[in-house]
């Protein structure tokens, strides 16, 4: 039991409030400590402050200068150890370059698949 002393930390980035609540609960149920951001800018700020963030789960379309895809690219550059999961409605998704390691989930996402992937990424 000395492998995981504390829970892994996940950052949920989603501008829609209730969707964010639900996503946070999914990750909390999966065993994560969960923190939240509702813009890409805010997520970058938190990533800079909190080196313990192991995983970022982000929406694509968000207000502000940094959308989910840009956020994934910046994380790959600056925090290559941090896992990234990107989700979006299929209609809103533009085929822009996601970093190789980032996982994409179309909305509505399958709860079990998201949980399982998240746990595998931080294992």
């Amino acid at each position, binding site marked *: 039991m000395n492998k995981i002393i504390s829970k892994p930390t996940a950052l949920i980035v989603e501008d829609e*409030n*209730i*969707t964010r*609540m*639900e996503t946070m609960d999914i990750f909390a149920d999966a065993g994560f400590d969960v923190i939240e951001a*509702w813009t890409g800018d805010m997520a970058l700020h938190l990533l800079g402050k909190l080196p313990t963030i192991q995983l970022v789960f982000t929406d694509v379309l968000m207000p502000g200068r940094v959308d989910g895809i840009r956020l994934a690219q910046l994380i790959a550059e600056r925090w290559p150890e941090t896992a990234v999961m990107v989700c979006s409605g299929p209609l*809103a998704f*533009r085929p822009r370059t996601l970093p190789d390691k980032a996982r994409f989930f179309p*909305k509505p996402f399958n709860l079990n698949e998201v949980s399982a992937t998240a746990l595998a990424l931080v294992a």
Partner: protein
Amino acid sequence: MNDPAGHVRKAALSGYDILQTPAETGFDDLVALATQICETPVGLISFVASDRQWFKARIGFAPCETPLSQSICAHALAERDILIIPDLTQDLRTRDNTLVTGEPFIRFYAGAVLTAANGIAIGTLCVIDSKPRPEGLTPQQASGLQALARQVMTQLELRRVIRERDRALTTSDEARDALQISEERFRLSSRATMDREGDTFHWDDALTRVYGYVASTVTPTAAWWFEHIHPEDRDRVRQKVLSATEVGPRWADAYRFQRADGTYADVLNQAFLVRSKAGRVVRMTGVMLDNSARAAADQHQSLLNHELSHRLKNTLAIVQAIAAQTLRNASSLDSARDALLRRLIALGKAHDILLASNTEQAGMEAVIRGALALHDNQQAGRFRIGGPPLEIGPKAALALALMIHELATNAAKYGALSTEAGHIGIRWQIDAAGDDPQLRLCWTESGGPPVSTPSRTGFGTRLIERGLAGTIGGTVKLEYQPSGVTCDLVAPVAGFQEKVEILN
């Protein structure tokens, strides 16, 4: 001066549009004639406005207007046709008039009433003397003065008719211009024809009209045409023409064609190929339709569709999350079903309000009332809602509706709405003092049973505490006072008014 007829007179005067206009010979002549006929040093055409009299023409009298208190003409308006006062110092109406008691010490007055077509007296043509005239006017002078007064009215009517005709002419000029503009638009949207024989191109004058080229600067070759096709479209069009030349009777393409000013028009081009008996193409005839306006409309339509699908996706995501959260926190399936249904109704009401306006905004009060509709038993005074009018954006409207709905749901179960006497105040105000104006919304329950802090925090409470504040920023303080629940929200007005932006 008590003047009940004042507003009627004012309307009649404004119909002639005469006040404060410059002197006109026609009126000056009539005043000159009046002084000659009546043998007086002073003559005036006076219009009696609501607070002053104004002189359109005057002889022997300097001011162009006087206050109504100095007006003798105002008294004349009460007469049918003419007022004659032989000695102004002896008449009750005029003896204290400052024009009588002081400079210029006037003594005699005779005024013929100017009556508008609708019977309203609007002023006088009057003559004045500095000496009293016990004999007044002779009958000839009096009828002469009245005849001249009628002439003044004729002049006024004439002016009015001329003005109306001018206005009508202006209107018809504008209509004609509008017609020209619309014809021009039609011509602009029309087509240029091209005719190619060998390498020689013949364009019709639409190349000038639609695309702005001066004919003398156009090289009449296929090469010139290709050069003016957008580089990204050029090879494709060239290829189409080539393959049509080999096999087809016609070709059509949509491409960008450069106008003389350097900008590109979206054109639709259709062309027919005429072949010799041997099958060789001898001629290509086509039309190039400027489709820019249509293309812009299509682009707008596509943007709207994109936005609509984004909205739909978002709404479904919210509904999915509300359903998941409701189930996750429910004590039984029945209670979950009921709570979910009610939440979706509250959300739907807010959507209706947003959709009802073309601006995609909703009134703060309308959103609150919509969210309370489920909880309103029509008992008077149940809800006391008030605050300054504020239009709020879609995100804030949906979150506010859910927040109010949850507060009301709790109030119906445990708070002010669970008793007959209970009532709820919902009031907001805007603090615009700082750079970032804040809206403060207070929910205050009273008259209900004593309340205490619930043991567990459900989804409803999260919606209250984080639903709106988590969407637009701000803070929420939910307190379970013994006297009733209070909920204070402070959030930036800018957040309330934020519109949905679509990122591409």
